[in-house]
């Protein structure tokens, strides 16, 4: 048996298809991106070696900096609005209410629907004349707040945040809920015997116990925000007047509208590095919290 498990041919048979597939479609292209980012290249004519100039342009490009700021705003809104709300819902559901399963199922529905469809739906929600939002405002007597939600640069970013938060609340809620479920029930029983209130149980037992899951969910929320593309692309394409531009839409434009392959690749590399750095920052913060 020992010999069979060391059979080189069998090892290759089992691991090479996945490894080669993954290497050629995912790993090699990353290296290509890194290489392209050092070029001035339009995809058709010969490329010119450009060194660090794409990166220098990037860090002084106002539009790029704005797109990074916007993606950080999305990340901030996720972490400080979406996640606390998700936590509150998870804690209530976990404390035992009627229809627990039904709520979980309902909250999760938007997560499984394609962002493209969600975006199309919110285009209609925000429609200036016939959209649901303006109609509801009229109906409850707040007609003076009607707006061209996606065409007005002052409110477009907010209008974009709403569907992003709306779509993934159920996901984070589920993560917290299932983590809380896996805590041994005896801990809660003991606390209740000692006369702890629901709030004390939440803050002194549940939340500290599920801290690892909270960390994971913060990382997902931050990294997901930095990579947000679908909703932005369909709803605003980064407009009006670049008010909702994020790094991914900027990169997409640089590739397919301006044919600036080198600069676009520098943005791509930036997105990876930014995700890694922020993941490490979140890890650090939670390490401090856990001590």
């Amino acid at each position, binding site marked *: *048996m*020992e010999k*069979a*498990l*060391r059979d*080189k041919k*069998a*090892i290759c*048979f*089992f*691991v090479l298809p*996945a*490894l080669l*597939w*993954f290497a050629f*479609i*995912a*790993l090699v*292209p*990353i290296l*290509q*991106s890194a290489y*392209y980012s050092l070029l001035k290249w339009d995809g058709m004519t010969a490329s010119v070696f450009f060194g660090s100039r794409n990166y220098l342009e990037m860090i002084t490009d106002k539009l790029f900096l704005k797109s990074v700021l916007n993606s950080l705003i999305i990340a901030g809104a996720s972490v400080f609005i979406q996640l606390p*709300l998700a936590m*509150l*819902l998870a804690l*209530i559901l976990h404390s035992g*209410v009627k229809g627990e399963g039904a709520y*979980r199922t309902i909250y*999760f*529905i*938007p997560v*499984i629907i*394609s962002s*493209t*469809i969600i975006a*199309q*739906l*919110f*285009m*209609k*929600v925000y429609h200036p*004349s*016939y*959209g649901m939002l303006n*109609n509801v405002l009229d109906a409850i007597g707040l007609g003076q707040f009607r707006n061209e939600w996606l065409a007005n640069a002052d409110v477009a970013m907010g209008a974009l945040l709403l569907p992003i938060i*709306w779509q993934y609340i159920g996901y984070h809620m*589920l*993560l917290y809920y*299932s983590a809380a479920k896996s805590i041994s029930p005896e801990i809660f029983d003991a606390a209740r015997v000692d006369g702890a209130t629901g709030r004390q149980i939440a803050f002194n037992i549940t939340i500290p116990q599920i801290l690892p899951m909270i960390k*994971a*969910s913060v990382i*997902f929320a931050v990294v997901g925000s930095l990579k947000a*593309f*679908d909703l932005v692309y*369909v709803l605003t394409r980064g407009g009006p007047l670049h008010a909702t531009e994020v790094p991914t839409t900027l990169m997409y434009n640089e*590739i397919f509208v301006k044919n600036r392959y080198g600069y676009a690749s520098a943005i*791509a590399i930036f997105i*990876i590095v930014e*995700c890694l750095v922020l993941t490490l920052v979140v890890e650090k913060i939670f390490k401090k919290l856990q001590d």
Partner: protein
Amino acid sequence: MRKTLTKLSSNFLLLMVAAVQLFPLYWMLTFSLKDNKEIFGGNTLGLPQVWQWDNYTSVLSQSRIGFYLLNSLIITALTIMFTVFLSAMATYAIVRLKWMMSKIVYFIFLIGLMLSMHAVLLPLFVNLKPLHNTYWSLVLPYTAFAMPMAILVMVGSLEGLPKEMEEAAFIDGAGIYMIFFRIILPLLRPIMATVAILTFLNSWNEMMLAVTFVSNDNYKTITVGVLDMVGKYSTKWGLIGAGLVVATIPTLLVYIFLSNNVQKSFTAGAVKG
């Protein structure tokens, strides 16, 4: 007294959020069954006065939405098949077979968890040019980017399974391939279902690559087809709504029948990640 009050307010909050999560979908469903006169004539929020089932028949007969659904189905099925089987094979090699590089290879796959398709959009656009406008231009990247998570959860699962059955089979003279197909695959079946659900949702809903690698109408997926349809019908909201509903139905069906499994799939990834 205070207890009932908090209980009441928590129930109220839960109900409110449920309404907020469902209302846009309710609204989509209702305007998919109205004509423009109703939608633009004041009845934007209520139930349709006249139920326009015609919207659905015209969308299904006039647009190519059925065709796009079929394309998505083919692409997603191929992606799931390759992801599940190739990942299971790699998992077996990583967990059970004895070779020096197994830890390193596992680590290489895990790097993939940090990568996203955005970072390889341009290189893949260049490299896969000969495959543009085929199913493979999407199946190749979808599979490549689904494998890291698949391998992560499968390795976690196989490591927790006892080896006795395999050892007994070896003693009975079974070869390594036979053991993989007859013992390992059946053992991994529950986790393969998890992987299949996650892979289904990710590839079915993917837009960025689908919109850039496929311009030929014959190979478009439903996410891109929906974008086209909206452009074509521009002001006919009823038809657009019907199209959006039709495009949502497959994922909703999967969710309705596998609701608990779907939720488990999403948490499985998070726990291991």
